[in-house]
């Protein structure tokens, strides 16, 4: 307590000293406080209303209106007023992919893991996704390529994801290529290269896309949807790699895999139970427990039913009597049940003196 008091006292002393020093420093040598002062000319103009403090910050037009002392309404320049409003893009237009971009999508060389010639992503967003896909490619076996389209855009009939994979990617490379539609992840398409296709079951491959779409749909912002989609897809591919490593595979042609109408309803989300049951150890344990439980219950039931009819015979004993009592001097417990609030142990009775010697 004394130590605290000393600390507080020392703090107050220092504070007072600092305040005194600051006041001294604010005062100029000539006794002024260092702040600007009105000169006589400005002061007169201010009092006459000719000078408006801050007017230099207000712009010429505002100043003129202020000086004119009229309640003139500021109106927009007619040239600006007559600017035509931007008409919304027609649906037809938004569905089409510009001719100038088609070559970048379908005929150009592969330049990075993220293809976005229409610049649907902002620069920073593009960089973030590109870095992520580069890291994925560096760390894992199956490389992942993203082709970005606008949400409603249609792929030209003469082009397809399968053709793209066959023409642009080497057969022996394990690759996953995605056509991703910004803001509309349900339309996403995923194609694996031949090396991956047959070594992993179709449902496993479907699951990768399905889970990615499901998680993407939890976000509303298109850029966030893409983030989540790519992350989830990456995780799914890692899981597929484990399967490939385990089982090996044969080389077959790439197959396009698109979610059909029913699958788009996404009814069977993989839950914790599916994950657990796919674990061999867990399954074995579950089977063991499912057998052990009823066995234990049966054992308890048998034991109880046996005990029900069981009789207990004690050994025959002999000994000498106590207190001249012919049958017994077993001093048992005494319990009072006067109070509902007091515990039974607090309501015992001491052994009477004459029985203490037993």
């Amino acid at each position: 307590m004394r130590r605290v008091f000393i600390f507080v006292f020392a703090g107050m002393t220092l504070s007072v000293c600092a305040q005194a020093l600051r006041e001294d420093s604010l005062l100029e040598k000539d006794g002024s406080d260092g702040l600007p002062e009105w000169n006589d000319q400005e002061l007169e103009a201010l009092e006459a209303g000719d000078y408006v403090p801050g007017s230099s910050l207000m712009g010429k037009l505002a100043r003129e209106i202020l000086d004119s002392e009229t309640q003139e309404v500021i109106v927009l320049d007619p040239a600006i007023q007559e600017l035509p409003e931007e008409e919304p893009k027609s649906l037809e237009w938004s569905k089409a992919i510009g001719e100038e971009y088609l070559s970048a999508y379908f005929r150009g060389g592969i330049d990075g893991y993220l293809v976005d010639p229409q610049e649907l992503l902002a620069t920073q967003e593009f960089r973030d996704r590109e870095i992520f896909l580069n890291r994925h490619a560096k760390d894992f076996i199956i490389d992942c390529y993203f082709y970005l389209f606008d949400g409603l855009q249609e792929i030209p009939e003469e082009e397809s994801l399968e053709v793209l994979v066959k023409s642009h990617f080497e057969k022996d490379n394990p690759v996953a290529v995605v056509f991703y539609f910004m803001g509309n992840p349900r339309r996403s398409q995923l194609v694996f290269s031949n090396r991956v296709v047959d070594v992993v079951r179709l449902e496993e491959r479907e699951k990768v896309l399905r889970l990615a779409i499901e998680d993407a749909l939890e976000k509303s912002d298109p850029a966030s949807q893409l983030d989540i989609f790519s992350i989830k897809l990456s995780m799914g591919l890692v899981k597929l790699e484990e399967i490939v490593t385990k089982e090996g595979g044969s080389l077959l042609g790439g197959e396009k895999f698109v979610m059909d109408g029913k699958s788009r309803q996404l009814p069977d989300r993989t839950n914790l139970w599916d994950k657990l049951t796919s674990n061999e150890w867990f399954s074995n344990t579950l089977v063991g427990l499912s057998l052990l439980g009823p066995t234990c219950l049966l054992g308890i039931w048998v034991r109880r039913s046996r005990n029900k009819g069981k009789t207990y015979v004690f050994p025959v004993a002999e000994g000498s009597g106590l207190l001249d009592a012919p049958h017994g001097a077993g001093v048992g417990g005494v319990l009072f049940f006067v109070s509902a609030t007091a515990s039974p142990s607090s309501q015992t009775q001491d052994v009477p003196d004459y029985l203490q010697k037993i």
Partner: protein
Amino acid sequence: MVHADGVFGSQDIKLKKFSDVAGVFRMKDREPMRKTLENFEAKFPQLFISVYLGAFEDLSSIRQYGFWMLNRTHYVDVDPQRSNSTGILILVDVNAKSASITFGYALMPYLSEETTFEALSAGHPFFLQGDYLKALKAVIKKLEVLLVKGWKRARKDPVKVLARGGQTLKGSSSEHNEAGISELSSEKEGEVKG
């Protein structure tokens, strides 16, 4: 015993093993109580339990009265082969709101003041509510558990267990049965009938 006789009398009394002198049991509750006592006897063929519910005006010591009662009572509805030394008396004073347990010599290796208090405590909530049937059932159930435990101990090492009660296994000692401790059964020691 002499002192107890001086207080309560030196004459033997005759009672049934279930006596509700206080009249706290309803008619419909008496039969289940008797059934519980019979079940106990079936489970422990050498033993019996007696229940006495009294409304005493001026009972100086319920424990002393239990001691006297176990030694002076002739239970008319108990198998004569089961002497009082194999009996457990649960005595309830409904006026003083107290209950006690007294037991015969044959049970000394298996029961004690502490364990019988545990048994009584099992019925404490029901005693408080005045539900004597449930209370006594709970007490008897707990006594059964205690006796089964004692039986298991005796089965493993009868000499040691009996020695705790100041007794010896019949045939292993030259002492006579001075106090009339019943020779409990002709059946083989530790035998279980099922």
